[in-house]
C-alpha cells in the first residue's frame, strides 16, 4: 500500500514534468520539465529499494545516485545549448527555432 502510494506520487510528478515539456514554449521550462521527470524516476528507484526483499544490495540507491549525477551533466549541456541558441536567434521560444522548416 505504501509502495503504491509512493509510486502514484512519482507518477503524478512525472506527469507534471511531462506537462511542462509538452505545453510551455520556453526552452528553459522544457528543461525544467525534464528535470522533474528525472526526479520522479529517482523517487521510483528509491521507493522500490525501500520495499525490496534485499535492501542491502543497494541497487536502487546506486541507480539514483548515478541518475542525479547524469541529470546534472545533462542540465549543464542543455542550458549551454539554450544560451548558444539565444545568441543566434535572440529568443528561446521553441516555436521560433524553425530555420530548417520546409
Amino acid at each position: 500500500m505504501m509502495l503504491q502510494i509512493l509510486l502514484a506520487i512519482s507518477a503524478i510528478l512525472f506527469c507534471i514534468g511531462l506537462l511542462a515539456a509538452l505545453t510551455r514554449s520556453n526552452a528553459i521550462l522544457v528543461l525544467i520539465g525534464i528535470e522533474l521527470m528525472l526526479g520522479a524516476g529517482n523517487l521510483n528507484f528509491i521507493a522500490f529499494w525501500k520495499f525490496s526483499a534485499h535492501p542491502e544490495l543497494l541497487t536502487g540507491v546506486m541507480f539514483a545516485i548515478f541518475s542525479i549525477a547524469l541529470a546534472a551533466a545533462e542540465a549543464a549541456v542543455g542550458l549551454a545549448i539554450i544560451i548558444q541558441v539565444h545568441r543566434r536567434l535572440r529568443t528561446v521560444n521553441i516555436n521560433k527555432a524553425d530555420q530548417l522548416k520546409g
Partner: protein
Amino acid sequence: MHDLLQYLTSRHWEPAPEWLFLIPALLMLAAGFAAVVLRNLIHCALCLTLSFIALGVLFIALGAEFVGLVQLLVYVGAVSMLIVFAILLTPASEVAASNNPFRSFNLSRALNAAVGGFIVLLVLGGLLAAIAFSPHAQAAVLPTTAATLKPAAIGQNLLTQTLLPLQGAAILLTAALVGAALLAKEEKQS
C-alpha cells in the same frame, strides 16, 4: 538516568509514523505544479528549487539519507543555480508581456495547452492503472528493520559492483564539463 540519556542521544527512537513522508511529497507536487504553471520564469525556477528540496527531504524520510543529501547538494546547489543563470542570461524580448496577467485569449495557445493536458492525462491514467494492477507493486516487502544507508556501504558498492558505471560517469561528466564550457563560449569576432 544515564541510560535514559543514552536512549535519548542515540538514534534508536520509535520509527516515525509511516504517513510522515506525505508532507514533503505533497509539498513537492504543489511546488512542481507551480513551477510548470507560473508566468514569471524566475518564480518557476524558485518553485522548482523548492520542489527539489522537498524531494531531497522525501528521500531522507524514506531512509536513503545519503541520496537525499546528494540531491540537496547537486540539484539545489548546482542545477538550480544553472537554471537561474540561464534565465538571467537569456532575457526574453517579450518580458513585459509575460508579466501581464490579463493577456488576450490566444486560440492556438489554448489549444496547445488542451492537447498537452489531454496527452498528460492519458499518460497519468496509464501509469496509475499500471501501479494499481501490477504484481510487482503489490508484492512489496514491508521493511522489518529500518534500512539504514551507510556511506561506507555505498563506497564499497561504487568501487566493486558499479565500478564500470563509475568510470563511465567520470568520463561523461568530464565530457559534459568541457562540452558545456565550449558550447557557451562567446565566439570572438575575427
